[in-house]
């Protein structure tokens, strides 16, 4: 039921995540990083994933790509279950899916030249002809707005954060993937450079026919690029819906809180102070029932007793809340 709820995608889903669970053992305890997340992404769609630090966004992204094997659940990519794939089969599949990280500078090997960094996926994929590799590297660097003649021989520290992110994007695109997980690709960047990179991602998406899972904690950034948005809190999905609709009429109290927290560049709008003080509880011992209840202004007895399931609140919009706002 939940599956059907979250799909609501037009067209065939390229990616289906089904009841995914990821746990990290720490000592005797268990970190419940992702606890039963289901979602679908249609071919050509961008799904934004938002939530506070530590809520499990990166874990979910990495588990989708099998960089971290999930504890339970399935990940279907183009009909193939990645969670049961190993060895060569998985390696082949990995060419079709890529990852872009938050910290562009740290994700580039400081001792390797840009040309080699961008060519690396080709080497791993077994493209043996150096001329062919050189040509592909030049093409993809030009595509992301860098001049290959100037950049290939240089080292990462010679580039700014924004340029390093362009290089990371080039590296992710070089195998012509179908699907990219963008894990906070602009969080470390300045406002002006952020806009350049967001525009670049949009352009590349059109040009390479990509499907994106776009992770961020900034709702305005997510809205700028996403067709639909999924909101996550402490390992679970709170709400999923078409971007415009979700922002105009959030159903989950946590979504409303996130929207309120966005700084608005208008001095007439005094920031509200209604944002509840406090931070998310520990994922080692998440609250019973609704995980948001310790910070939720609407919480009641039912919220601590019963886990809310995702339910339709409007066409295409689903919220996991006993007392939704709409």
């Amino acid at each position, binding site marked *: 039921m939940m599956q059907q709820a979250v799909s609501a995608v037009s067209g065939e889903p390229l990616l289906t995540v089904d009841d995914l669970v990821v746990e990290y053992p720490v000592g005797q305890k268990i970190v419940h990083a992702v606890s039963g997340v289901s979602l679908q992404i249609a071919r050509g769609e961008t799904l934004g994933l938002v939530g*506070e*630090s*530590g809520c499990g966004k990166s874990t979910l992204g990495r588990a989708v790509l099998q960089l971290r094997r999930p504890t339970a659940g399935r990940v279907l990519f183009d009909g193939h279950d990645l969670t049961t794939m190993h060895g060569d089969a998985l390696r082949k599949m990995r060419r079709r899916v890529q990852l872009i990280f938050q910290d562009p500078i740290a994700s580039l090997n400081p001792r390797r030249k840009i040309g080699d960094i961008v060519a690396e996926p080709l080497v791993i994929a077994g493209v043996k002809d150096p001329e062919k590799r050189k040509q592909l590297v030049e093409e993809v660097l030009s595509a992301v707005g860098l001049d290959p003649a100037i950049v290939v021989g240089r080292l990462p520290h010679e580039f*700014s*954060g*924004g340029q390093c992110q362009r290089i990371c994007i080039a590296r992710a695109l070089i195998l012509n993937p179908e699907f990219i997980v963008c894990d906070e690709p602009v969080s470390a960047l*300045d*406002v*002006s*450079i*952020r*806009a*350049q990179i*967001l*525009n670049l991602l*949009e352009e590349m998406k059109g040009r390479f026919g990509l499907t994106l899972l776009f992770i961020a*904690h*900034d*709702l*305005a*950034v997510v*809205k*700028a*690029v*996403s*067709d639909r948005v999924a909101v996550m809190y402490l390992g679970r999905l709170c709400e999923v819906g078409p*971007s*415009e609709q979700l*922002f105009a009429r959030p159903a989950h109290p946590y979504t409303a*809180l*996130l*929207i*309120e*927290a*966005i*700084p*608005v*560049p*208008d*001095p*007439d*709008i*005094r*920031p509200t*102070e209604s*944002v509840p*003080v*406090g*931070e998310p509880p520990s994922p080692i011992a998440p609250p019973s029932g609704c995980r948001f209840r310790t910070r939720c202004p609407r919480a009641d007895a039912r919220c601590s007793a019963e886990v809310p399931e995702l339910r339709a609140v409007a066409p295409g919009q689903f919220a996991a809340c006993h007392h939704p706002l709409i």
Partner: protein
Amino acid sequence: MTDNVLLSVEDVVVDLPTPRGNLRAVDRVNLTLGAGQTLGVVGESGCGKTMLSRAILQLLPKKAKLSGRVRFDGEDLLRLPAEKLRQLRGRSLAVVFQDPMTSLNPVLTIGTQLIETLQEHLELDDAAATRRSVELLAAVGIPAPEQRLAQYPHQLSGGMRQRVAIAIALSCEPKLLIADEPTTALDVTIQAQILDLLAREQRRRHMAMIIITHDLGVVAGRTDEVAVMYAGRVVERAPTAALFKKMRMPYTEALLAALPRLDAAPHTPLPAISGRPPDPTRPLQGCSFAPRCRYAVARCRTEKPALEAAETSAHQFACFHPIEIREGAGA
């Protein structure tokens, strides 16, 4: 804005020697701040915000060369002996950095750090300093403050650490708090909480504050005045309401336009500012923004516009073709 000037920065220049040559990080900056007022300093990474705040605090790198004047609370900071400066910094002039670990000591408990700061500047015995520490932690929204005293910084989340750094900064009731990108490393919800916390404490203590950020959205509802910096210089300066009502400097306008807006439809291309700021070791002859400015004309490339006042003396900008005048001329 007020006769009661707490801080005045006059013609401050910070030069840093680098292997590529001299780097002018701050270029003839003038600012004043009244007691209890809040100033926002906005600009992109590398524009000199941190060096400016370090110049005010007299905490520049050793090799840096500073000229100009910084007057704070009646004292000329550039002439103050080191010992007096140190006292001033803990006491009436406090700072919160982007990364709270810059100001927290990783091997000391939160309690030790708070109590030491309090005892260094105020004459408090152990019991009183402990009591005060608990009050401060509670005031900055830390749950179970008594228990936190025994914890180390690494045992707290980023947001909690920033709260502790704020508690330490506030501990001696400073007259001026400089917050250098206090929330850039934090999540939006935590960011809003920390900014609210700073605003509340600022009002309560009638403390002056400088908020440094790269996000115009952060200063909009929270400051009395804004100074926009570009390539080491202040390029526009105005009361906050006036600035948002009528931006004159093309750079300020571009900075605002580049922010993703919640009221825009998804997939609307963002009006990004193309290119990057100039290499600070290779200063441009004309307006530093000229290579990225869509209104630039020949004069912009050869002559540097001075920061001048428009119709009201409070609103200054450094541009030959400020936004409204250009439109009025029908160019």
